[in-house]
């Protein structure tokens, strides 16, 4: 008995480095260890629900957060709940994937700008999902990956866009600040020995 019908033609495959995601990633350095990333944008919001504001320079305070941000001020939506929220990071690659409608979990592509995802740092070339429990450097600042961020319905309501499912497992990284300092867009990001 044949459970599986056999197609007449062999299946057509997309070569990994020709896929819209793979083709972009293959041209830049990366991997879980030998990567070198870059800080693209810094955003803070003064209080819960306020629009994010872009900074050209941000002061990070160890054990507290980015000066002026709602989680530094204790006025964030989730501030009353103890959690790792000193600095949050988000991958530019995810914004690119959403704008390609990849994966196609909604009616079409979603164009989110770096100020929309409400995480503090938009980075490129940094494998955030591999940095839980790891120390890494952003410019002169040293961060510790605490937990993966999780999408929330609150963000969906604020944006008026169905981002909850598409952000599953790629919603960023929540970090503590081990060594504070000044951050600027363009800062290099690299893994440190744990």
């Amino acid at each position, binding site marked *: 008995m044949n459970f599986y019908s056999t197609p007449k033609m062999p299946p057509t495959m997309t070569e990994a480095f020709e896929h819209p995601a793979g083709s972009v990633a293959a041209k830049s350095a990366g991997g879980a260890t030998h990567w070198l990333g870059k800080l693209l944008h810094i955003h803070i919001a003064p*209080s819960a*629900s*306020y*629009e994010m504001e872009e900074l050209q320079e941000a002061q990070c305070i160890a054990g507290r957060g980015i000066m002026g941000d709602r989680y530094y001020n204790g006025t964030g*939506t*989730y501030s*009353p709940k103890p959690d790792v929220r000193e600095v949050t990071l988000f991958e530019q690659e995810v914004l690119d994937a959403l704008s390609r409608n990849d994966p196609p979990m909604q009616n079409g592509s979603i164009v989110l700008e770096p100020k929309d995802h409400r995480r503090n740092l938009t980075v490129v070339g940094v494998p955030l999902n591999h940095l839980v429990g790891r120390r890494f450097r952003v410019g002169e600042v040293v961060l510790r990956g605490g937990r993966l961020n999780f999408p929330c319905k*609150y963000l969906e*309501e*604020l*944006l*008026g866009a169905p981002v909850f499912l598409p952000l599953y497992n790629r919603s960023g990284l929540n970090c503590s600040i081990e060594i504070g300092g000044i951050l600027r867009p363009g800062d290099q990001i690299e893994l440190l020995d744990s």
Partner: protein
Amino acid sequence: MTARLIMKLRVENIRHTAPEVLHLELVHPQRPVLPEWTAGAHVDLRLPDGRIRQYSLCGDPLDRSRYEIAIKREMNGRGGSIWAHENLQEGSEAHVSAPRNNFPLNNKGERYILIAGGIGITPLLAMARSLRHSGREFAFHYCTRSNVEAPLLDELVKVCGENLHCWFSKEGKRFEPSVIGPYTSGTQIYMCGPQGLLDSVVSSLSGWPDDNVHIEAFQMTSDENFKPEPFEVTLASTGETFLVPADKSMLDVLRQHDFLMSSSCEIGLCGSCECGYRDGVVIHRDKVLPTSKRQDRLMLCVSRARVSVTLEL
């Protein structure tokens, strides 16, 4: 419950449109396009001390470059309008939420009757603009003391033309509800204004079904005979039960127990703290939920229950 983005907008223009009424045009300092809205929508204006006040948008819903609101100085109000009158000027920063619409204009009507009293003109002016854009038939009745005390009258004249009917009480013309005529299924009535005007119009509309009559109030229904009683509130998800004392709201009690609940006006008008419920006899007391939603939704700020209620939380 719907979270809304709060933006720091700039007051681009400000003028007195009546002796006690400021008309403001707000723009985003960085973004040319503001979140979209429909006629009847309001925004929250946040005051520096954290209080929030709602103002209906009175501009053109098709113009995404600015929000227009009008604020009447209410000497006996709760202080928000006085703050706005004393502090906002051209170039000021105003913290304003994205719009929400609790008073939407439907498209069921063949003909619309809009009745505004005083500052109640704001949502209805936006509706008149929308009706005009879509080429619908409408009549606008504007009730104020005089033309001098009529906010946004100049703009209303431009939008409505001969569809505008002014009722100036100082000239001896008080709104005569009989001009509405008998019920016809194709007519939709929208009203906003002081309670006295709304009451007199509603009492003349016997025979009109709820589907055809839409009212936005300024203040919650004051019922001096209502005596709040304590009751118990249970959370469906965890089974936790809390006592709501007579002098506290469900919102107060949930917050005491570290639940982060969003709210805004806290007088049953804005709809921010809407919540589902499962069982219990609920005394609604709000002015925002339509009858059709009251069997399973309530407003945590003003709604109460007899004995107990289970919330979908």
